[in-house]
């Protein structure tokens, strides 16, 4: 499913939420929408779904304006999902299956519920589901009609690490089957793992778009370690700051933690633990996050804001 945003503008009163957005997505592509809160991501996606009407410009799906026929081919997993709490998961999926005229909705629902470990809850009332279970159910609903375009807004928020892995695999499988993906997320590391192209949007304007390599071009990447100690060692900062691998260090005394930015691959968890032990420090927890797209996103956003000023 090919999607074209042509000079799309959407205003709310005097506030311009989306400003002359031009973007083209090829069929089968995976695209990530990045941007701070209020940047215009959700407004753009809601206009694509026909919830908002553009003030000017247009959105074409396979060359056609948005209508009920095109929307039938779209699957949506919204960030804040709402359900009919008085229905069971099975009834809920059956309702959407009938609405989308899915021939084998019950079987598809069964397979997807099993994939996301929800099969045992198929006959439970949705009102009794946890946040993560509701998120998974929303994903099943979004996939029940085998959409040609899948729109995911914060798809892994509220999920535990195992759930994140399950959902990520399911999304990647859908993509391999030819489904076009649009993912909007603040978890940039998640976007990196799922999409091939990203667009950074701020104040309604598309600041930059391209492959992840393009976006990262020239941007410094680093690993961010959070090292928690048994007791907060105020004197450890100097030793950690002097280490070869450290680029930057921050204290978080309330959590007995130091946050260390290091060059990617310059240090591993074991080595960091041993380094601490050599300095008489006992680590209780080590957590690494690779910061790459985030840094690029922040830098591009900051540059853009400076230009606007």
């Amino acid at each position, binding site marked *: 499913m090919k999607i074209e945003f042509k000079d799309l503008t959407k205003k*709310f009163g005097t506030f311009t939420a989306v400003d002359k957005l031009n973007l083209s997505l090829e069929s089968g592509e995976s695209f990530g929408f990045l941007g701070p809160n209020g940047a215009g991501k959700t407004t753009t996606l*809601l206009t694509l*779904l*026909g*919830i*908002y*009407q553009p003030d000017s410009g247009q959105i074409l799906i396979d060359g056609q304006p948005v209508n*009920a*026929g095109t*929307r*039938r081919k*779209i699957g*949506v997993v*919204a960030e*804040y*999902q*709402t*359900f*009919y709490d*008085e*229905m069971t998961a099975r*009834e809920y999926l059956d*309702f*959407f299956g*009938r*609405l*989308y*005229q899915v021939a084998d909705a019950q079987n598809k629902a069964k397979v997807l519920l099993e994939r996301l470990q929800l099969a045992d809850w198929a006959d439970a009332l949705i009102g009794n589901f946890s946040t993560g279970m509701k998120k998974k159910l929303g994903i099943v609903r979004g996939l029940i009609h085998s959409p040609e375009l899948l729109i995911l807004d914060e798809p892994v928020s509220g999920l535990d690490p195992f759930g994140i892995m399950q959902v990520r695999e399911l999304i990647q499988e859908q993509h391999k089957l030819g489904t076009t993906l649009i993912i909007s997320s603040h978890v940039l590391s998640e976007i990196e793992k799922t999409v091939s192209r990203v667009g950074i949007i701020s104040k309604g304007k598309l600041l930059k778009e391209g492959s992840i390599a393009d976006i990262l071009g020239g941007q410094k990447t680093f690993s961010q370690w959070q090292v928690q100690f048994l007791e907060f060692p105020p004197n450890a900062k100097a030793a950690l700051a002097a280490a070869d691998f450290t680029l930057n260090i921050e204290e978080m005394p309330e959590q007995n933690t130091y946050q260390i930015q290091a060059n990617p691959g310059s240090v591993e968890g074991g080595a960091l633990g041993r380094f601490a032990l050599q300095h008489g420090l006992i680590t209780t927890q080590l957590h690494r996050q690779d910061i790459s797209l985030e840094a690029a996103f922040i830098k591009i956003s900051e540059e853009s804001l400076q230009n606007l000023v």
Partner: protein
Amino acid sequence: MSSKKILPGREASVIASHIGQLTWRGIGIFIILFSALLTGAVLLNNSTRFLEKNLVLVDKEPLFLPIYLSGVVLSIFIGLLASMRVARELDKGTLELLFYGPVESRQYLSGVAIGYMGIGLASVLVILFWAKLSEMLLNLAPDAKLFGLLLSVFLMICAFLALSLLIAILGGKARNAIAYFVLAVFLLLSFQIGDSLLSTLLLGGSATATDALSLVRKILYSVNEVLRWLSPFQITFEAAQNLNHGAITKYLIGNILLIAETLILMTFAILRLAGKGVRGER
């Protein structure tokens, strides 16, 4: 415009069955059935009273008023449930989820209307059952007018349902929808009841009637003159009276008015929802 674009289509029937399922599961169906059965019991009691006082020969249709009143009660209950359902879906965001897919305003509201009309029809059938039981137990002569009266009552439920859906769309939020709904019911019933009460007062005590009372009576009469063409309750009341007095043409005109009102109000509700969208701004 093709017929496909005018007819609500398959989506509406899916939504209608969904509404039926949710209402059946919720407390709504119990309220509806309770009110239908309660009214049926009142109806039975009323018939007994008429029989005891030997008034059956005097009154041409002793079942008329109880059936009409039960229709009013059911209209209000069903209308309130429908209005709350739509307002809650707007509030909660479940409606937006439907609109992400193939559902449009026309299909959604038609589906909701069909669902609740089905519930209205079931309630009318409960009243019919009680009416027939009443006739059988009390040895009242079966009357074909009963079916005509129930048809008008059903059309009244449909017209008030359409008004309730429009109220929900205009209200946007559940809180506003309740306020508008109560106001609409109050306006529709108060003028009608007020007019009847003052009319009785003036007739009963014309010697003591003041000018002020006459003025109020005139105002209420004027408002009622307008309402008799607009209020589903008033139109049904007059249609039922015409049926009772054998004025079949006027009775049919009343029914046609109810159908027209249902269609007009539904059209307004659909256009309004399509125009403003589920987020109150498109």
